[in-house]
């Protein structure tokens, strides 16, 4: 069995003349928690749509668990779970009944419904109609639905949007547990802290192309800039790049001479790395 769960090979998806995904080549390993990042319109959602079989590739190939997503969609479907960015429950049903319906489709025992509700801490609200749920509860119910059949592969689109800190932590814990159990998780998010915290690897896409691929730490190390802003005793302001020897030397001289009145160091975070890689301004 190959250790690659998802393999995208020169994937292209065009909407008319617009290339939403432009030659994306990517391999995601089994048991990996992979973050797909990118600005709005970068092609993340389109890539996910191809992976769940809801969009045909214009060119290239997408293989999931060794199967072609177009040709073998019916065989792939029962093996993945999907948490969409927009909640899609039966509003008139209770949370429990929503899960029971999907449990029946997956031929999963009804006992699993309660397990999943407990997992996302919704057991107390299980019998309330979904129309009475908060946004966060609805998102947790989506996750519970995706976990019903214990899929080998989980796609999550903004899984922690609208969740409070505790609920977000619960989701992170569940995802790590799934990965520990051997599942592969692919998530898209705009929360850089979340990416740094839980993702094993990150792919940053921009204008349909992959611009960076590595672990969050490696990306941060490779791309983070260290700078120092000083104000001299003569009220002059300077910025020194601490990654260059010349700037470090000049700064040291000013300090030694006692001309530095105030100094503040800046270490760009992962957010800045993301902005730098995607060619966006840092404010």
């Amino acid at each position, binding site marked *: 069995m190959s250790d690659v769960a998802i393999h995208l090979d020169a994937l292209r998806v065009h909407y008319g003349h617009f290339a939403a995904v432009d030659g994306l080549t990517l391999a995601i390993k089994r048991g990996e928690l992979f973050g797909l990042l990118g600005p709005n319109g970068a092609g993340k959602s389109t890539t996910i749509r191809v992976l*769940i*079989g*809801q969009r045909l590739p214009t060119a290239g190939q997408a293989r999931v668990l060794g199967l072609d997503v177009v040709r073998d969609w*019916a065989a792939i*479907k*029962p093996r*993945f779970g*999907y948490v*969409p960015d*927009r*909640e*899609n*429950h*039966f*509003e*008139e*049903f209770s949370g429990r*009944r929503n899960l029971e*319906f*999907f449990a*029946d*489709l*997956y*031929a999963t025992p009804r006992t699993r419904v309660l397990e999943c509700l407990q997992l996302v801490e919704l057991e107390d609200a299980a019998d309330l109609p979904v129309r009475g749920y908060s946004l966060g509860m609805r998102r947790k119910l989506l996750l519970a*639905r995706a976990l019903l059949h214990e899929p080998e592969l989980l796609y999550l689109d903004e899984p922690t949007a609208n969740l409070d800190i505790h609920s977000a932590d619960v989701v992170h814990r569940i995802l790590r547990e799934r990965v520990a159990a051997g599942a592969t998780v692919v998530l898209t998010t705009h929360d850089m802290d979340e990416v740094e915290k839980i993702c094993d690897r990150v792919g940053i896409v921009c204008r349909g192309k992959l611009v960076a691929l590595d672990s969050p730490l490696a990306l941060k190390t490779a791309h983070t800039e260290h700078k120092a802003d000083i104000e001299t005793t003569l009220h002059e302001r300077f910025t020194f790049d601490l990654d260059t020897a010349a700037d470090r030397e000049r700064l040291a001289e000013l300090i030694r001479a006692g001309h530095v009145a105030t100094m503040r160091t800046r270490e760009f975070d992962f957010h800045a790395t993301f902005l730098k890689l995607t060619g966006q301004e840092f404010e």
Partner: protein
Amino acid sequence: MRLYILRALLVKEVRRHLANRGGLALIGLLIVAALLLSFFNPNAAGAAGQDGMVAETGGLVGGVHHCFIEYGRVTPLVRHLQKAPRPPELQETIRFREIPPSQVNELITYPPGVGSIQIRETSRDGRPVLQFHVWHPKDAPGAMAGYEQWFWQETRRGLQEMAVHQLTAVGADAGKLGQPQYQDKNLWAIAESFHSLSREVELIRSLAPGPVASDKPLLPEIEIRHEALGGTPLDLRSAIATAMVVFSLYFTCVYLLPTLNCEERERGILLAQALSPASPYEILMAKFLFYPVIGIGLAALLAGIYKPEVLSSLFFWLSLLSVAGGFLGIGMTVATLAKTQRAAFMGSMCYLMSVALLLFICQQNGIPGLPYLALEYHGPRILHAAIVGEVYRNHWLHLIAAIFLAWCWVFAAGWLFRRRGWQ
């Protein structure tokens, strides 16, 4: 097709309707209406004699807006009538129709507001007899007056032309024949004018030089009969029962099916089901099964409450299945074309309004052919015939048309599904 998935999908549909009680309330209302209609019947259902010609029920206004001139073969008289000038108001309202002699004594059904004058050829004691049967709506013998006035004038003129031709052929002086008087509208006077023409022709013929070839009169004997069209006048109770049956099928297949389908699509629920192990065919099959079955069940219940014996009628079940199949095709077509629940609602309402208007305009203006393309033209007729228990040959033809149109709609829906995608 996996049964456990189909069952889950069907149970989901049932639960959705149990949770949103609007559909159930309407079903309850229809059942109560059917019970009221059945148990508070002021009169016993009337039966009608069914010999001769019948007028279909369903006319919205009285009078005769169209008249058929029907004949067994094209004779010089028919040719004369076809070419004869007509008053402007009758230009478009008189239609000539050849009916094979073998069918002339069969049951002919006329649409509401249509009368006819049939020209039948027969013989008595070796003499040809020309029978004119004027079929007018029941209880409205005067409704054909305008057509008759033109018809009798031109028939008299046509017979005069025939007489001139015949007299000339036997060497008689046709110029002695007097000109007809057209003013009289009295039936007796008209018949008398035909008889006087025949007497005059025979007199002139007797004055002709040479031997008489035959003692038979040159002109045929004329008989005029005014007859009322048969058929039951529209019984409002049976019409209401039919309307409820049609409405229950329309409501489930053309309204509920597309709107709830589009709601699922709009809210992404259809996508969630599509990503589950359920195949698109299983999801569609559940919908195909649920709504028509509910519609047929409700329609049969309503018809059964009104008239229980209808449930043992093969024609009723065939009618129900064909109309439900057609409505299912229409509903699925709307569901495929509409992207949102609102668009589906608008689509089903616009369809209903446009077809109703089309049928009304066609009936009022006597536009031929076009109504036959509407399932809503045939459906109520066959269901009404089944419910009142008066099924004639023409109703079987309506049933065949309904089955064909149902097939067309289902085919169109399937074709659109393949082209546009089911989501």
